[in-house]
């Protein structure tokens, strides 16, 4: 690396990040070392580079010292690259005359030995200083944004996002996989902490979605492909056959009446199998849209083709179509909100709680239906054997906080257990025991809610339930024993109960990984989608233009879900109302005169940005589609594809910088 005759004048800054960096890296030493490197004319360390005075320092130094390049060693570029690019720009330089060194996440936070950490900082800093000398001025390009929005999932999260956007005048496609919107919330009777009726809040919102002129509601539909980029996505939607012509059905239910099955015989999904339905059915009375569907798994016509098809003849509007096929549709949108929710842990995963074996064991969701005024028993708590429970045990943390199932706390189970305790008490007058590990009631009004319910005479036993088994003293063997160690009195206790409620935790949907791959977003190992930054960008994903809302991002209650849904809608609105998006200039381009038309690059681009122009016999990159992944650049055999910010000279000088460690004096003294 030679001195560039004073044309390149670099300002270098290393941030202490409070003590985050400075406690592990000798920042004064790094700044002193950087000052000795070629082309560096200013070298400083400062407590918080990202603060106003830190940025001011860069801006003033550029002006006073005629700097032409800036290097900041601080945190991840992810956090503050834009901050410092902006300061570089404020100082009068092109913002891409800037390079960032990550001395925090890549250095101070991951090493234990201060001496080595400082040495690594010297190497990283040298690489950046060598590299930045080769930087070229670049401009961000603006591309228009498609104003329509796709919302995936019609739970409370999707509903709230869709309505917020539609009320702001945006066109929304709401795609729900089930035949009705509503998600889990539609199954609840009342919700904590206010104990207000879930239906009273939710059903008006559901019908608002249905009737909103700006919302295209597609139920029983799924996304099967997503192409493109922020501002211009193409989504492929599959409409599953309902065997009912949606436009014609008015939800009169005549066909259900007319079905050759006189009795409902098949387990009703919405009621968690606690009631029966026919092959042609309405998911639940308030289902939205009010359109029936036929389940081919149970319909005689689909099983044997030997049905008199009374449903078809009964429909005056000719809405029944047993020949219906899946239909595919492509839509263009600029942004996507993912609100696909959660699934409760399968209670069978904890076999010693006996779910599926002992009829007296219920999941919380089943109980939500049992106590629901519009549930299978109109709110009367009748057990599977027809009896009414006098003692009930509620087991917290089923499938949560346990390394055999899920490690995490599902956040809502303690509270909905308290809610169910209250409601069960109200409906049955039974004695209620709550078995908990810790009572977790964070959030506004939650502890108050717990205290209030606790005063209603519930019993709270602190201890993880070890076993549930039939009571040998009960001649009918219907009663169950809940065995746990009460850790407060350090005694094993065994409580006989008539009904057990398993408070199952929340986990990602089964197809979370597939959906994630299709949308090109990231998820944690357990399967919840990852936000871009927990504090700075909590509803963004790492893919621009795709946002998260609700439990697909992690367990949470309805208030938090709705808050997040609103935030996601606001982020989308901010993008749409700006009208355009600026794309990072780190895209690749082909020099036409240099391309031999060998076509090596064409199939490689993961974003299909490259096409082969037959007339010219040359390849061409659509810069709006290019994400700057560099695949084609590495693959172009004649070096004719260039990527901005990653040109050969930039990368080679960086490598040269990293490898040029022999010149440093390695012995450093530490006081």
């Amino acid at each position, binding site marked *: 690396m030679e001195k560039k005759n004073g044309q390149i004048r670099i300002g270098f800054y290393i941030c202490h990040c409070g003590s985050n960096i400075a406690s592990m890296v000798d920042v004064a030493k790094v700044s002193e070392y950087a000052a000795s490197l070629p082309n560096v004319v200013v070298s400083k360390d400062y407590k918080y580079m990202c603060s106003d005075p830190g940025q001011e320092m860069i801006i003033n130094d550029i002006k006073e010292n005629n700097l032409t390049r800036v290097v900041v060693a601080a945190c991840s570029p992810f956090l503050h690259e834009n901050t410092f690019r902006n300061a570089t720009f404020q100082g009068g330089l092109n913002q891409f005359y800037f390079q960032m060194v990550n001395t925090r996440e890549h250095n101070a936070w991951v090493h234990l030995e201060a001496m080595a950490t400082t040495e690594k900082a010297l190497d990283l800093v040298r690489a950046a200083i060598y590299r930045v000398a080769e930087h070229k001025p670049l401009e961000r390009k603006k591309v228009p944004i498609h104003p329509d929005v796709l919302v995936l999932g019609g739970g409370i999260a999707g509903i709230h996002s869709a309505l917020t956007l539609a009320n702001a005048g945006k066109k929304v496609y709401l795609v729900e996989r089930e035949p009705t919107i509503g998600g889990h919330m539609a199954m609840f009777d009342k919700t904590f902490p206010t104990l207000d009726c879930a239906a009273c809040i939710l059903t008006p919102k559901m019908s608002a979605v249905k009737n909103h002129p700006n919302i295209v509601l597609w139920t029983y539909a799924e996304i099967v492909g997503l192409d493109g980029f922020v501002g211009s996505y193409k989504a492929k939607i599959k409409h599953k056959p309902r065997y009912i012509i949606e436009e014609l059905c008015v939800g009169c239910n005549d066909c259900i009446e007319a079905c050759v099955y006189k009795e409902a015989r098949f387990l009703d999904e919405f009621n968690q199998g606690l009631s029966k339905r026919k092959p042609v059915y309405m998911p639940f009375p308030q289902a939205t849209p009010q359109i029936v569907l036929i389940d081919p798994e149970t319909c005689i016509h689909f099983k044997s083709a030997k049905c008199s098809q009374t449903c078809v003849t009964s429909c005056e509007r000719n809405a029944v179509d047993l020949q219906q096929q899946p239909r595919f549709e492509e839509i263009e949108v600029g942004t996507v909100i993912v609100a696909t929710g959660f699934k409760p842990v399968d209670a069978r995963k904890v076999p010693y709680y006996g779910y599926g074996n002992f009829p007296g064991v219920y999941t919380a969701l089943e109980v939500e239906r049992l106590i629901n005024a519009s549930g299978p028993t109109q709110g009367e708590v009748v057990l599977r054997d027809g009896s009414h429970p006098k003692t009930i045990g509620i087991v917290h943390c089923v499938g949560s906080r346990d390394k055999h199932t899920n490690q995490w706390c599902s956040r809502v189970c303690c509270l909905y257990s308290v809610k169910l305790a209250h409601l069960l008490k109200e409906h049955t007058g039974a004695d209620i025991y709550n078995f908990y590990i810790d009572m977790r009631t964070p959030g506004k009004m939650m502890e108050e809610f717990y205290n209030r319910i606790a005063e209603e005479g519930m019993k709270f036993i602190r201890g993880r339930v070890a076993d549930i088994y039939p009571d040998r003293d009960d001649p009918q063997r219907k009663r169950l024993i809940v065995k746990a160690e009460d850790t407060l009195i350090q005694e094993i206790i065994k409580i006989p109960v008539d009904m057990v409620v398993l408070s199952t935790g929340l986990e990602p949907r089964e197809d979370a990984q597939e959906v994630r791959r299709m949308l090109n977003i990231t998820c944690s190992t357990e399967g919840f989608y990852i936000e871009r930054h927990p504090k700075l960008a909590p509803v963004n994903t790492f893919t621009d233009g795709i946002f998260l809302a609700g439990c697909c991002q992690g367990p949470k209650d309805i208030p938090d879900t709705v808050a997040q849904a609103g935030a996601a809608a606001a982020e989308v609105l901010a993008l749409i109302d700006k009208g355009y998006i600026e794309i990072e200039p780190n895209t690749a381009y082909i020099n036409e*005169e*240099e*391309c*031999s*038309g*060998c*076509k*090596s690059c*064409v*199939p*490689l681009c993961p974003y299909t940005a490259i096409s*082969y122009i037959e007339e010219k*016999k040359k390849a061409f990159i659509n810069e709006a589609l290019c994400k700057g992944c560099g*695949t084609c650049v*590495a*693959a*172009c*055999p*004649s*070096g*004719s594809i260039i990527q901005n910010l990653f040109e*050969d000279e930039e990368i*080679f000088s960086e490598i040269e910088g990293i490898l040029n460690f022999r010149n440093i004096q390695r012995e450093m003294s530490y006081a």
Partner: protein
Amino acid sequence: MSEKPKIALYWCASCGGCEESVVDLAEDILFVVDNVDIVLWPVGLDFKKKDVEAMPDGSIVASLINGAIRTTEQEEMARMLRRKSQVVIAYGACAQLGGIPGLANQFSLETILKFVYEEAPSVVNELKTRPLERFKDNGRTTELPGLWNVVRTLDQVIDVEYYIPGCPPSPKLLKEAVLALLSGHLPPVGTVLAPDIALCEECSKKDTKPTDLKFESFKRTHLWEVDPEKCLLSQGFLCMGPATRSGCGALCVEGNMPCTGCYGPTSRVRDQGAKFLSSISSSIGADSVEDIDKILVGIPDPVGTFYRYGLPGSMLKRKVVL
């Protein structure tokens, strides 16, 4: 009469093909002889080293030196010609990039000598005699040039103004270079005097190359029949065309032999072998390590395939520990 510009032609570690290419100028050679004075050309004309040594420094307009540098003598001659010449042109793949002789950089000098003088199947040398650099007999001393441990390109030994690529260069490039020299319209120093675009550009099979090529196996030409109509790479023959400078007139590929890369990389590529390897591996149609291994069976000699003409001039230069 000797107002004509002086030209020297010299050979170092090379096969003689480059000399042939001068003769291949055919009738154009008359034009060359008419317009320049050849002051040194060991293959063609009987000038001695001392003749050139006697000339003033800088009096030769251009020296065209072919072959890589392996011996002390080659180095000495290259330095001498450098002093005497205004312009030095590295002529042919060996001078430019190291060429076929450069493949020797995979082995130590001792390994090479041992093989050549003792182990090669055709050698009978019970006394294990090796050539000596100096031999005295009857008071007279005979000397042979020494061998360096590695093969170097010409510009790793002396400054070079221009390069004419190829194994050997096409007569067309030579003629154009001579014309440029005579006219004095010379490109910037360091230029390779050939088109700066890859070979596919001038290949007649290019249109048949698909845009979704995936390699499931690599074929070698002596084992498979070549479809003369179709892009060779798309048939699985490792054609280096996409990674190789054009200018040869696509001679090999038109003769249904895959390009082996002798014109070297374009100006935008620092390491032709690495670049082509990077390109090829991007398009391997394999899902597992086993699949990859199966595909790699088709490339038994990767260095000889990807670095056939360019090992000393590449970023690798030689095996790290010889």
